[in-house]
């Protein structure tokens, strides 16, 4: 079971570290990361394994959204299935 974490917003020091710290704390294994900085805008997409998550998926989502609010970034956590079903036949 995988989830996709997206982070979009103004670039700053330590975004990747803070997001991955929450993932590590809740036992979500980071599998893949793509990251771009264009004109000061930071965009990161992270694929994480959530099969051994130590909390509910909704709790992880809540924590990351709260981090996003705190840093002024837009952070979304969504189950991989949704992207698979919408974009793959």
């Amino acid at each position: 079971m995988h989830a996709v974490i997206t982070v979009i917003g103004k670039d700053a020091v330590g975004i990747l570290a803070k997001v991955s710290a929450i993932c590590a704390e809740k036992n979500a294994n980071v599998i893949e990361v793509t990251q771009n900085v264009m004109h000061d805008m930071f965009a990161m997409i992270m694929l994480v394994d959530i099969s051994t998550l130590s909390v509910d998926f909704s709790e992880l989502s809540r924590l990351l959204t709260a981090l996003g609010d705190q840093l002024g970034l837009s952070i979304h956590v969504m189950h991989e299935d949704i992207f698979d079903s919408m974009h793959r036949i």
Partner: protein
Amino acid sequence: MINARDILETIQMIQDEHLDIRTITMGISLLDCIDSDINAACRKVYEKITRCARRLVSTGEQIEATYGIPIINKRISVTPIAMLCAAAKGDPVRFAETLEKAAQTCGVNFIGGYSALVQKGFSAGDEALIRSIPEALAVTDHVCSSVNVGSTKAGINMDAVALMGQIVKKTAERTADRDCIGSAKLVVFCNAPEDNPFMAGAFHGVGEADCSINVGVSGPGVVRAAIAKAPRDASLSEIADIIKKTAFKITRMGQLVGTKAGEMLGVPFGIVDLSLAPTPAIGDSVAHILEEIGLECCGTHGTTAALAMLNDAVKKGGVMASSRVGGLSGAFIPVSEDAGMIDAAVSGSLSLEKLEAMTAVCSVGLDMIAVPGDITPETISAIIADEAAIGMVNSKTTAVRLIPAIGKQVGDMLNFGGLLGEGPVMPINTRSCETMIHRGGQIPAPLQSLKN
């Protein structure tokens, strides 16, 4: 890994373009609750609904959290209550009160099925139920009612049409102090689908499974945004293609949610209703799609053609995305629930006659239209008859949900709030149609009903 562009596109659809699951509707059969004692029947109805749907709302919320997709409504549809009234003698409103109580216990937004199917005639229970509709919708908040008065196979029951004119008017009068909201919960159908998840017309047909999950998707904003990205000189074939691709993605999401909800609730997944259902929110309007295609204002010449193309492309895109398609499936054009339709009606660009033409090429009918409060029951019946005739001849579903705005005149506004929105009172043709409506009888089924 999934393509980054696809991921960002999905997030943009949900964040900025109002993509959502409009409703998860659990259909529940009440055939095993029929009892000659109305007290026993009501007890069984309450027990069955609360047993089947007790986890519906929490499951919906869990899916919302996991997939990050908003699910706006959780609803229940039940077997047409007229069938229970046929056995249980007594006041049908007792069933409406029971449905209301069950809806409140389960925490759902609406419960549909205070219905009767009378396209070919009234059977025991039908007329009593229909006559009780004004009272039932006045004393409940969550109960929705529908009556099927015609079909391609049976023709149009004009006695029922005449009766429904009176019922629609009385329902508005009974709730005149609440902007006539009762009539917003009452639909008169021709060719009613038995697996429709959308209110107010949802009921659980007798051919359906004991319990099933039907899903209605939304997404006018997503379609409009996709068309807006196309160049201004893109041909209509290209626009149709864009709509198809977008409808495919929207429907896949509905299919996923329906399948997951069915699995989690231990209930078979019924259908995805491929509909573009607008809301009064800015950017979630079907009228704005038509305008994006290239009309200055919805209702002008060309509207019917644009809507026909939109409706067809939505179905073509959606049908491949889902294993089971049903319900109403097409574009909805409710006036009060669509910001663009409201503006078009207020500005005078959109008339009742144009809306009637539009209903010939899209999925529903004259929906959520406020008419002057002094409209006669006969005129309401005649509007229902016209709409039913379009449905009967074209082998499609049509419906009428008119709101006689008691005490108000053309140009005044009715405000229902929430998803039901607000709408201007629209002018009608006031010439009499009484003699025709008073004739009663049956409009015979058209030749196209003889397909065997």
